[in-house]
């Protein structure tokens, strides 16, 4: 996994509540078997009309937000489906951070797994950042995961909280399967204690 320590980038805001994963990455792109290349499909129905032309009004189509890497969103961002394709598409588009008052839980978990940092921030603070993003040309924020700080060189600084274990994984870019496999003995031990009535599905492995 890509490590995340500190990132400075432009912000873009889609500040409405309940943006579900169907909006972030519509289902027609779920038939692909790779992890890459979803950036062009991010917010597809919002970005493109039915003929495939860009909708100029949509925020990520506006020249000043095209290279944004910090997304500001409304509450319950990423609700709905478990598709990891949603965070993949945000990351592939160029986002490294999503800041929202709350997230859909599976989406939130998925982000950490791929090195996209989701940050929960009070709604009024997100609103403040949204306002600055809209008013100030090239508004930049720095997100420092080591110091747990979001700041702008000029006039903004706020601390954020995140789960300590996830923070450590992200800072180091750890492969969490590798971490779990360190406990292989414990897993085997647990398996021996499983109740006798539990079933085994594969005929070749019938015990």
């Amino acid at each position, binding site marked *: 996994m890509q490590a995340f320590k500190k990132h400075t980038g432009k912000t873009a805001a889609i500040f409405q509540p309940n943006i579900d994963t169907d909006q972030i990455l519509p289902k027609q792109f779920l038939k692909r078997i790779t992890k890459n290349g979803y950036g062009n499909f991010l917010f597809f129905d919002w970005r493109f009309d039915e003929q495939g032309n860009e909708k100029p009004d949509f925020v990520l189509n506006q020249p000043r937000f095209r290279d944004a890497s910090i997304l500001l969103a409304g509450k319950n961002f990423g609700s709905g489906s478990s598709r990891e394709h949603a965070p993949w598409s945000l990351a592939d588009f160029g986002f490294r951070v999503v800041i929202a008052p*709350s997230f859909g839980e599976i989406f939130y978990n998925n982000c950490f797994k791929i090195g996209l940092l989701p940050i929960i921030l009070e709604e009024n603070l997100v609103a403040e950042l949204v306002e600055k993003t809209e008013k100030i040309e090239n508004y930049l924020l720095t997100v420092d995961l080591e110091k747990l700080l979001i700041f702008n060189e000029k006039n903004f600084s706020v601390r954020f909280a995140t789960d300590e274990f996830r923070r450590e994984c992200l800072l180091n870019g750890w492969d969490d399967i590798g971490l779990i496999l360190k406990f292989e003995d414990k897993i085997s031990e647990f398996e021996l204690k499983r109740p006798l009535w539990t079933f085994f599905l594969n005929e070749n492995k019938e015990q």
Partner: protein
Amino acid sequence: MKTLYDKIWDAHIVHAESGKPALLYVDLHLIHEVTTPQAFDGLREKNRKVRRPDLTIGTLDHSIPTKNIFGKITDEFAAKQIEVFRKHCNKNNIKFFDIGADHQGIVHVFAPEMGLSQPGMTIVCGDSHTSTHGAFGALAFGIGTSEVEQVLATQCLQQTKSKNLLIRIGGKLGFGVTAKDLILHIIGIIGTDGANGFVIEYSGEAIENLTMEARMTVCNMSIEAGARAGLIAPDETTFEYLKEKFYAPKGENWENAMEYWKTLPSEKDAKFDKTIEINANEIAPYVSWGTTPAMVAPVDGNVPELSVAKIDGQSYERALNYMNLQPSQKIEEIEINRAFIGSCTNSRIEDLRIAAQIVKGYKVNSKVSAMVVPGSQTVKKQAESEGLAKIFTDAGFEWRESGCSMCVAMNGDFLLSGERCASTSNRNFEGRQGRGGQTHLASPATVAAAAICGHFTDVRDWKFKDNGLWFLVFGL
């Protein structure tokens, strides 16, 4: 004193350290074609093996066609995804049900019907509606593809424990009111993020009286309220359903399992972080009017005014605009041109029995195109042998092969822009059933009635042409 969730959690801890997520063992890993190819690739890149193919089982459901299933799949992306899934399962010695196979079906339909979902288990799948299996008193939840890879490699997940939310539903559901109406009512009250950070346990008289299939409908939509999982304590209804199922324990194992399962329900003085009381007597058949499953109204009511809609103005305007509806518009005056009976929420045999009783003796409205997509091949065959399929086709419904179909609309079954659909599925998000398509969530009874009338109607007043059986319709 422990809750059902606490007990299952504690029984599956492989390793725990303070300040870190627990390592939780997974008893059953369900897989399908959409959320697994990248996980298998990840394993291969790191030269890792599937640890327990014998606790992993697959089905094809999301991308597959629901007609001409043995013909060539013309969507090249779907064809490739299906082919890759077969290859991964075969190579890793994982049992799976292929298109048209006896037990093939939607992952959350075939597993319970084969007795795979059992009380006290941990069940995961790369699909958010895995919460369905909580109906058995199993801790079941959806995971992303990275976590699918984790479970394939280790049979474990790093998990942080959620809080306990009790939703107690007293009273009785009235005639014509089903489990779907109950869960839409609950989501309408608590909102799409009302259970964020929680595992819900549903209890109370109304829950105890539900059949297993109805309980699955309730738990299925727990995710639409933001919950990690939904649970219902196992009881005689659960045991009766499971007994003799293919993968259910047999003989002495059954006795031992029962003894354990009976210890699972939450203790009387168990501590819940939050409790919500619901009165089932007050619940009407529901229809969604907006673009989240919390935007619902009683069928005999109206599209709410903003002042009573319990949502922010921006979301309200956007939803009405997308749905092309007006404030105060009567729900019963909303006309539809599509009807979909299917999905992991409502495609089981009881759902089809209810819908067929409504439909019997009627014709689908000439302005409506309607289809029934059974949840599994088993459901399909059962419905055919009971004569339900004939009732549907005689009325003008299309009778399809099993799969997710127009719930997720990625298999070629979808709404055209501007089409308005009464749907038994679980999500009415913008574009969910097709770009520009307008989805109204409702129960199988309400959708069946809407297909016939061409607009929503209150099934509590439905005139059953088959008078002899009307009282069986809702199992009352």
